[in-house]
């Protein structure tokens, strides 16, 4: 079938799909198709990723030498702040849910679109407005509070563009909330007939857990940042110590969102890995229910651990004790996932295609990141490594080694579905290796630096740290190359890549049952089916019932070994 499609001249009877059904800028900007909206997100998010990466590059260049030669302290403060804000709020948080989730979630559950297509488009526009505000803050002087906006510095200390940046994140928060709301309603109401909860693909479970965090956590950061803005703008004191306000209270509210936000970033990546590993190991996922429910457990426990960011900020020792214990508890569902992926790999016939390389990289790097998280969750050790490069290395192992590896793996995995073209496999494997090596060279030295006592957020450092910093900067340039390479060949593949068949990987998810790229409403066949005894059938208008899940259908979207 693949060869037949390749031989056929492209002009002869080209199938209509979501990309060529309509042309012109209007058909994109006013689209209600979740697949097109996902691509709109992809453009903006990729731009933000490289902007954030540029700031990271400047930071690493400054740290090449112990002295302040490239930038001075003020500029350096702005660089790491803007790197953090852009990467966290405008890349990591929306990356997988808004791009990959938007694209494949409705297809995975056999629906024609999300529950609220207009709302989906609106959340993209809201996201863009948030981006515009933040870029305004970035290009008219920057902001230097750190991405955490700690008061009172952010309210009465800093003279930089705090309000535009806070407004940008506030607006962006609504985009997240609406996306999460849309996903939750879609998963509840629009599953194909017979697709019960415990047959959902694991990526859907991960997105569902993420959406819960979106709608429960994001409002709190929104109101907190709004208060910071009000305090700056109208001199209303809420966190102002001069009025008896408590800056620590800000930290509580901030981390009440921002720690769960870490799980917003990592859970979808775990979902991607849970799709890729069974597919390329040619086995069904080991411990399906454990992986599914560990996502929910992480989402739940994630809300109870925020205090571990504040061990040395002045909270009571008893609170710290409990937060420390709860932080250790999060390791349990995380480890459940890692063990189940490993067990899925065991005796599988493992194919080392590019998505799988990223997934394997994820498992290794996430394990390192997670275990060093336990170091930080221990009260005594945290006092020693607090605010050092150890922390920086730890969360980059989770964010970059985890979330970004999962994102790249997912992009490669679903690229044939999204574009209808195959990417060049050899080059992709090479890029995956470069990313893995560059990443480790960048961030592993930072563990050692932090343990030796180099504090974060300084642009100068003692001479004895230079060797490790040079290694780190060298790694960062390799890593940057590793990110540019996929960008290049993926764009190249749009025109020159081989045409992708419907199911290039031999996967079993519903999204692989439809042509690549899919038609506008995802599935060609929409047979109305009588649903025996289902009185609620009237209330599922948009479900395209192309497949009734039989009880023999494998759980999740594992690859059938028969293929």
């Amino acid at each position: 079938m693949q060869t037949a499609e390749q031989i056929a001249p492209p002009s002869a009877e080209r199938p209509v799909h979501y990309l060529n059904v309509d042309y012109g800028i209007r058909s994109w900007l006013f689209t209600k198709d979740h697949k097109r909206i996902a691509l709109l997100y992809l453009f903006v998010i990729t731009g933000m990723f490289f902007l954030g990466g540029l700031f990271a590059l400047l930071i690493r260049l400054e740290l090449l030498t112990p002295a302040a030669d490239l930038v001075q302290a003020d500029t350096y403060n702005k660089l790491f702040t803007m790197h953090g804000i852009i990467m966290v709020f405008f890349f990591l948080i929306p990356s997988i849910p808004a791009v990959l989730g938007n694209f494949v979630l409705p297809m995975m559950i056999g629906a024609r679109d999300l529950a609220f297509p207009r709302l989906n488009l609106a959340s993209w526009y809201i996201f863009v407005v948030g981006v515009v505000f933040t870029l305004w803050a970035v290009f008219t002087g920057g902001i230097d509070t750190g991405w955490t906006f700690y008061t009172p510095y952010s309210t009465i200390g800093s003279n930089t563009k705090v309000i535009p940046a806070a407004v940008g994140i506030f607006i962006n928060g609504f985009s997240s909330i609406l996306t999460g709301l849309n996903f939750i309603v879609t998963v509840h109401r629009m599953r194909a007939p017979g697709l019960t909860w415990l047959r959902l693909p694991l990526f859907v479970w991960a997105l569902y857990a993420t959406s819960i965090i979106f709608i429960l956590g994001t409002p709190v950061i929104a109101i907190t940042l709004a208060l910071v803005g009000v305090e700056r703008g109208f001199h209303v004191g809420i966190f102002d110590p001069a009025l008896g306000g408590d800056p620590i209270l800000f930290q509580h509210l901030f981390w009440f969102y921002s720690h769960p936000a870490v799980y917003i970033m990592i859970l979808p990546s775990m979902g991607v890995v849970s799709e890729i590993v069974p597919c390329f190991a040619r086995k069904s996922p080991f411990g399906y229910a454990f992986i599914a429910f560990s996502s929910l457990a992480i989402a739940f426990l994630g809300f109870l651990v925020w205090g571990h960011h504040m061990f040395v900020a002045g909270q009571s020792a008893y609170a710290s004790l409990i937060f420390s214990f709860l932080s250790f508890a999060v390791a349990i569902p995380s480890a459940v996932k890692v063990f189940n992926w490993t067990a899925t790999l065991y005796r599988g016939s493992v194919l080392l295609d590019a998505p799988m390389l990223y997934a394997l990289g994820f498992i290794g790097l996430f394990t390192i990141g997670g275990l060093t998280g336990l170091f930080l969750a221990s009260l005594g050790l945290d006092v020693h490594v607090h605010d050092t490069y150890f922390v920086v290395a730890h969360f980059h192992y989770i964010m970059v080694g985890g979330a970004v590896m999962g994102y790249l793996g997912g992009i490669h995995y679903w690229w044939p579905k999204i574009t209808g073209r195959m990417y060049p496999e050899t080059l992709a494997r090479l890029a995956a290796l470069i990313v893995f090596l560059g990443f480790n060279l960048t961030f592993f030295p930072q563990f050692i630096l932090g343990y030796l006592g180099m504090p974060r957020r300084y642009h100068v450092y003692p001479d004895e740290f230079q060797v490790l910093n040079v290694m780190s900067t060298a790694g960062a340039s390799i890593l940057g190359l590793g990110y540019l390479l996929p960008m290049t060949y993926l764009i190249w593949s749009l025109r020159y890549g081989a045409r992708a068949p419907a199911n290039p990987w031999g996967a079993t998810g519903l999204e692989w049952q439809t042509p690549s790229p899919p038609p506008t409403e995802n599935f060609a066949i929409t047979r109305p089916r009588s649903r025996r005894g289902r009185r609620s059938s009237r209330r599922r208008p948009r479900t395209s019932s192309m497949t009734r899940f039989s009880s023999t259908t494998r759980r999740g979207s594992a690859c059938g070994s028969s293929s």
Partner: protein
Amino acid sequence: MWVFLVTEILFFGGLFTIYTVYRSLYPHAFGHASSTLDLTLGTTNTAVLIGSSLTMALAVHTAQVSRNGRLIALFLCATMLLGGVFLGIKAVEYAQKFHEHHVPGPYFHWEGGDPQHVELYFSLYFVMTGLHALHMVIGEGVLAVLAIMALRGRFGPSYFTPVELTGLYWHFVDIIWIFLFPLLYLVERHS
């Protein structure tokens, strides 16, 4: 819509948390500050808002059982009117605060003791009631659109979802006030 209201609860929840923390830290200052609020206006506003919830519920009910667009629009307009009265009274209260220099900021002035913590109270007062009023204004706008749609006969027993959802929203905003009122106005009046 229910999911959306959950996010709204969390949104206000942050503020209620701040209120709880500061009130338990500075109960006396909060009590003094609270007793300067005009209880008559506050109570009137509570009654007005509960009345508007009644008319909103009537509008939803009418839409569910009949196609009488004018009656639906009438109830919606009554809701808008009561909401407008609420906002008007709120504006009067805000104006009083400006005259008494109880608005936090450079012009804040307080005769009694503990001025910082009293200012903290008024910061919370303005942020919480202001956010609530903003929700009311949004609700008024939605109600206006609904009333026009109702006059055109869009709603009836077969299609009343927008009216019902707006009703949920309006009741939610109402409930927020039901919490705000005792917390801000009544904390010191139990004796």
